């Protein structure tokens, strides 16, 4: 994997609250704290994984970075190749235009994210027409080149999405995301809808493209085995909060947050001889509109003490590059994947 050289994006105290409205007058009935005071950096050239269960805010974090939504609070400092850093959170639609070409997205569902009425040439070429003014044979050449890069035959550019299988459609989506030579690609559950054999092809493709184009990925997924395979560093989210951030190896081998430990133990191991001792968490993920007091994980945590219900633990660095938000991180011994 390519080396890291500097920070590409610094997320600072990012929050995204969705108001809940109800009744005839649409009165304010509280808010859903989808992302709550989250800070992290994305290094140029790395793959940062964002994991967590449904409703933990990982997708909303990605959508804030892409500025699909305007965050409630916080800063998103993007560091361009040349010139001053910009705070994406403060820019309006016009101000965002140049940066939209450098931060692109790969979507989850290859069936819903491609317009069925457009041929591949239009799907992949649209952003080239708009942003680069390419037309005619120049456009076709570039699209052919992109299709070649993702392992599709350039002759297929006149076909419509229905003529492709799920894995091929995902490659079309990848070609579209890469058309403008982006620096940062947000991949939200990019391989979750694919079958195992196609999934491994797609993961290998994403890694090859990263090396060729010096891409940086924010890889959002709920699947820890995929995260372990593609990411350099991993951030774990729980009910809108970042609970742990570390390089992949130390997160998987020596987790420091009890939630990460439970998450790792829940992944079924593909070997019948090591039927694992799962840590089965009681109950469900709490409602992000009424999160528990203190540490949001304390009602399900088997190590919780009184303090956990009262004080919210800050994210702090416990070892080199290993950040965790747990009061007890120094006191408890947690088990990683080899336990």
């Amino acid at each position, binding site marked *: 994997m390519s080396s890291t050289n500097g920070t590409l994006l610094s997320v600072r105290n990012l929050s995204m609250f969705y108001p809940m409205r109800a009744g005839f007058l649409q009165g304010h009935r509280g808010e859903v704290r989808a992302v709550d005071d989250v800070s992290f950096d994305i290094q140029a050239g790395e793959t940062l994984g964002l994991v967590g*269960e*449904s409703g933990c805010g990982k997708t909303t974090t990605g959508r804030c970075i892409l500025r699909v939504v305007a965050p409630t609070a916080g800063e998103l400092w993007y560091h361009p190749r040349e010139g001053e850093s910009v705070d994406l959170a403060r820019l309006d639609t016009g101000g965002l235009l140049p940066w939209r070409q450098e931060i692109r997205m790969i979507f989850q569902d290859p069936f819903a994210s491609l317009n069925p009425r457009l041929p591949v040439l239009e799907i992949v070429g649209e952003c080239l027409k708009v942003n680069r003014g390419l037309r005619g044979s120049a456009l076709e050449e570039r699209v052919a080149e992109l299709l070649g890069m993702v392992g599709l035959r350039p002759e297929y550019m006149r076909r419509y999405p229905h003529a492709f*299988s*799920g*894995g*091929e459609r995902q490659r079309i989506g990848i070609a579209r995301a890469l058309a403008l030579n982006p620096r940062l690609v947000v991949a939200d559950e990019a391989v979750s809808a694919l*079958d*195992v*054999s*196609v*999934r*491994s*092809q797609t*993961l*290998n493709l994403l*890694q090859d493209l990263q090396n060729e184009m010096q891409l940086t990925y924010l890889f959002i997924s*709920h699947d*820890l*085995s*995929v995260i*372990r*395979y593609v990411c350099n560093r991993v951030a774990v989210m729980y009910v809108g909060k970042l609970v742990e951030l570390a390089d992949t*190896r130390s997160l*998987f*081998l020596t987790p420091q947050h009890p939630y990460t430990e*439970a*998450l*790792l*133990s*829940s*992944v*079924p*191991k*593909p*070997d*019948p*001889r090591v*039927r*694992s001792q*799962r*840590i*089965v*968490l009681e*109950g*469900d*993920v709490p409602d992000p509109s009424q999160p528990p007091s203190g540490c949001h994980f304390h009602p399900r945590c088997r190590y919780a003490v009184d303090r956990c219900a009262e004080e919210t633990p800050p994210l702090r660095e416990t070892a080199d590059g290993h950040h965790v938000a747990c009061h007890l991180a120094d006191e408890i011994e947690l088990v990683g*994947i080899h336990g």
Partner: protein
Amino acid sequence: MPVERQPPSSEDLLLEIRDLHVHFPLDEGTVKAVAGVDFDVYRNRTLCVVGESGCGKSVSAQSILQLVDRPGHIVQGQIRFHRHDADGSVTVTDLASLRSSGRAMRAIRGRHIGMVFQEPNTSLSPIHTVGNQISEVIRLHLGVDEDTARRQGIEMLERVGIARPAQNYDAYTFELSGGMRQRVMIAMALVCSPALLIADEPTTALDVTTQAQIMSLLQELQADFGMGVMLITHDLGVVAEMADDVVVMYLGQVAEYGDVDRIFHAPAHPYTKALLRSIPNLDFDQDIRLDSIRGMVPDPFHRPAGCPFGPRCDEVIEGRCEAENPPAFSLGEGGSVRCLHYEEVALS
């Protein structure tokens, strides 16, 4: 440490599927979704059916209960269900010969064979309460009155780990979380104590922590009720955790069948080997690059001649694999594989 498992005994046989073929005649041509499938399910054992989308695993399960969507229908084969009565007698019914909406099939479906579907969101009715949907099953099959049905329903909800079962019995399904809805589905499938539970991707739509809860629940309930479980999944991790026996399907056929330990540690079919190599492992000791299977599952209208896996296989025998679709060769201990490489193993 290897888990001790007893080989299945023929007295515990619940379901025998023999040479099952299910076809979908469509305008573009006939899709042979299931093209000659054989396997058995035993009491107290879990059979996992694994394969990629379009391999026919769900259609095989649906055909057991005669729930295949039209225009699909069973064109050939037998599905022999062994009903074990309390007095020890065994009645064998061929489910493939029953009419889908006939009295005999309806008496079995939901009573002796329960089914849990993949999407709890779409398989539960949003306009009926949880209680309505559970008591319907109980009253239909066990013929008890409403109060008894309510009591049994609440007991079952409690059994599957639903908090405040009495209140949630009167809740609508949209008021519950995904994991809770899947528990309601399991409660509905188990409330008549079926001999066989068919679960089609029961945890695919759920998060890993909820998946762990549901898998533990299924294991507990199997230990209590002694039912046979047929679990359909594409997740090899789930298979390794849950299965006693494994059926690997490819393009409507059983590529390999065998004990879970042998499938994972001595896979025979090139497809099984390739599948196992292509899963990202949590282990850090192995190589960082994933192996993948060349190409993709062929289009169902253009099945390859010869072995269905031939065009993607790394171990093709020139001149034979393109021409012959191999039969199932025995590997001993009940295992079998459809691959010409094992022809001689089977003969010797």
